[in-house]
């Protein structure tokens, strides 16, 4: 019997919430307060009606749809709604589809006070509401240094020069005529979770981990294009990627990454890239921090030394306790987070919960995710959902029963190289609290007796 299913034996226990772990009751009473349950049938009906009216709107219907129904049944079933009795919208009423209006709470958002101008800022993806591993294109996180553009693809050019025999220029037509590959990869900003190095700073997983997205990208391996230009792979140990926007963002990429899996991508999730994500061309550097995935990509230069660009000299350098900056920190190390229940959420009831989250590593595949509900004293391995891909998000799930007490939920990932996600304490011991970047520590969510989940740090 699946853990959420009703078992006769549990009926009594359900009333006091002391039922066997993992069992949830289907009896409507289960969802009522004790007060409501002691009311007579008629009183109860009017109580419910009042509660429904008081609640009103979406939230009100929720309470009822959970099964708190009058004796004759749920009005949502008994009173056929307009959509059952009327004519719906025609095809192509919205030629480019949109999410349901009931989903509008899930949006990219800025963290107030984090940055001072919108064109050099970041918007965070609402991880708390995502399923599976693919980020919807419209909710992909944004990071712009000098604003975003919607560039005319017919005028966009891509150049390769430097240590190559034949420096070349490609149009979008050229690139899109070539053989293509499609790959799913996560992209994470190096500063993701950066606000949390010293202490808890933000309330929800959107702000702690939302500079993270995962999409299917389509394009051409950079290696093929470098071959096409006759790159000198002996001397050329690095490439510089450069954008076409005002910031002309530059980043150095290791040739080892290029030979492995770097690609020049024009498509994301089955359509062309969104303008906010670099339309019509961006670099995809699997496993490496987002700033290297240069958007509006206009040029690749092959060289024999790293370029010390602004975002590898003044920013995206990790300050260590001894006052030295780690330069060219690029790989996003093994990390995971529980996305629900997570900070700022309230559990709607006691009983069964599916703890769900995501895990990823810039060094390979996710091998294992362990979950603790007691603040790290004990751990259990979660179920990993397929596909489990290289440098890609992996979804994990594990059953849990909330019995109404305090609980601290944590997840800990291990990748295919055997690297285990460290605690905040372990990370601080080596890197201090001022490095801003590359915080891959274990996230803790405190579930309090009032049902509210909050962001906490342990130790």
């Amino acid at each position, binding site marked *: 019997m699946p853990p959420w299913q009703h078992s006769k034996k549990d009926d009594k226990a359900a009333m006091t919430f002391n039922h066997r772990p993992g069992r949830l009751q289907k009896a409507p009473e289960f969802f009522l307060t004790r007060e*409501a349950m002691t009311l007579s049938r008629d009183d109860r009906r009017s109580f419910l009606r009042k509660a429904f009216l*008081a609640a009103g709107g979406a*939230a*009100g219907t*929720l*309470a009822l749809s959970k099964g*708190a129904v009058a004796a004759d049944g749920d009005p949502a079933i008994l009173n056929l709604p307009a959509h059952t009795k009327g004519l719906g919208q025609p095809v192509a009423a919205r030629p480019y589809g949109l999410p349901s209006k009931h989903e509008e*709470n*899930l949006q990219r958002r800025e963290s107030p006070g984090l940055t001072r101008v919108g064109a050099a800022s970041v918007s965070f993806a609402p991880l708390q509401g995502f399923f599976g591993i693919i980020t919807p294109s419209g909710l992909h996180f944004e990071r712009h240094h000098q604003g975003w553009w919607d560039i005319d693809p017919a005028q966009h050019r891509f*150049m390769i020069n*430097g240590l190559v*025999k034949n420096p070349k*220029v490609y*149009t979008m037509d*050229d*690139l899109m*005529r*070539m053989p293509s590959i499609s790959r799913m990869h996560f992209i994470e900003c190096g500063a993701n979770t950066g606000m949390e190095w010293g202490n*808890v700073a*933000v*309330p929800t997983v959107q702000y702690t981990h939302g500079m993270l997205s995962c999409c299917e990208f389509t394009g051409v391996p950079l290696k093929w294009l470098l*071959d096409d230009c006759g790159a000198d792979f002996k001397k050329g140990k690095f490439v510089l990627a450069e954008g076409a926007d*005002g910031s002309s963002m*530059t980043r150095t990429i*290791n040739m080892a*990454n290029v030979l*492995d899996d770097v690609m020049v991508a024009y498509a994301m999730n089955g359509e062309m890239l969104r303008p906010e994500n670099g339309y019509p061309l961006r670099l995809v550097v699997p496993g490496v921090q987002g700033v290297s995935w240069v958007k509006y990509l206009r040029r690749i230069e092959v*060289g024999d030394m790293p*370029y010390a660009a*602004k975002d590898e*000299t003044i920013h995206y350098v*990790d300050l260590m306790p001894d*006052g*030295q*900056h*780690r*330069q060219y*920190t690029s*790989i996003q190390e093994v990390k995971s987070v529980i996305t*629900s229940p997570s900070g*700022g959420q309230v*559990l*709607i009831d006691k009983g069964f919960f599916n703890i769900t989250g995501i895990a990823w590593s810039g*060094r390979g595949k996710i091998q294992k995710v362990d979950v603790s509900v*007691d603040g*790290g*004293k*004990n751990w259990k391995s979660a179920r990993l959902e397929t596909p489990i891909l290289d440098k890609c998000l992996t979804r994990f799930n594990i059953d849990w029963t909330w019995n*109404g007490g305090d609980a*601290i939920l944590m997840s800990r990932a291990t990748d295919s190289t055997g690297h285990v996600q460290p605690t905040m304490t*372990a*990370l601080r011991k*080596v*890197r201090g609290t001022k490095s801003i970047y590359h915080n891959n520590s274990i996230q803790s969510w405190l579930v309090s007796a*009032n049902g*509210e*989940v909050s*962001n*906490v740090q*342990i130790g």
Partner: protein
Amino acid sequence: MYKSVNTRVQRRGATLWTIATLLAIGLTSPVSAQTTAWGKLGRTATPAEIKAWDIDVRPDFAGLPAGSGAVSKGQDVWESRCESCHGTFGESNEVFTPIIGGTTAEDIKTGHVAALRNDSQPQRSTMMKVSQLSVLWDYINRAMPWNQPKSLSTDEVYAVVAYILNMAGVVPNDFVLSDKNIAATQGRLPNRNGTTLAHGMWDVAAKPDVQGSNCMTNCATSVTISSRLPDYARNAHGDIATQNRLIGSVRGADTLRPAAKTFVSPAERKPATAGPAAAAGAKPDPVKLANQHACMACHGVANKVVGPALQDVHKKYSGQPAADVARQLAARIKAGGTGTWGNIPMPPQGHVPDADIQAIAEWIANGKF
């Protein structure tokens, strides 16, 4: 830019390559791209095209165009093109992170900025961090002024870099920066020795520096919560109820109100979202306003950032009636100023609506953070 001497080599290389390609096409076995059907896509870049785009300057200054600029000319450029955003002295306290500040004459000797090792500076300025002079030239040339990038002439870039170095005490007032002396000037950068490659996050084969534990049972005897979000920050990110789905196993917490004392069952729960009517009637929330107007970029409630901790402001004036204090603070917030808490000026906040300033001022005056 790859070393300029290579341009010639490259161009010659291109010719050789074309010949090699022509030869290769006749062969069947090589798995080189040139022999694939699509190898003919794209075309050779012209020297003028490469020149137009290949503007990067490397740490060894390859790619740096010839030119020069004096500190005095740089001051003109700074005042007309940069100061509005970065401040008169590069302190940038109006909007952005500071460019100048936090470096000493001693740092210029050691090449290590001492302030990076202690907490003596509220923010890390560009000058404290920058280890390669090439990047100041490269970045200003490619991206500044922020709203008009690539509008400076080569000599203007030299001049304004010279002026920035002068403001940081790296070069004297009569200094002229040029392609001839820039490498020597690199030797005076305060944080030139401030970077390390001794870490595992660059080379794909390198080892990580912090390994987690594999322990599965009885891994800790006690669990202590060392940090949590303070109550005053409960709604600093808005109403979390409106940032979560309205169905499923969880809802967003209503952060416009204090947390519930006990668990509230679903049937008794108030609607997750406060209606627009309720929101319209509600008093403006000063915490939200202070965040929205970026006050909190410079002020902490309990800690000094660029400006004083708001708790300290409250304490300083707590002997006077709160209403008077609020009125005076509102006027000071609007006008900005310097000297009360040190010599860093607070920029005028005239762009913030009066009602919002008043609400924030009352909040500080009342001290109920």
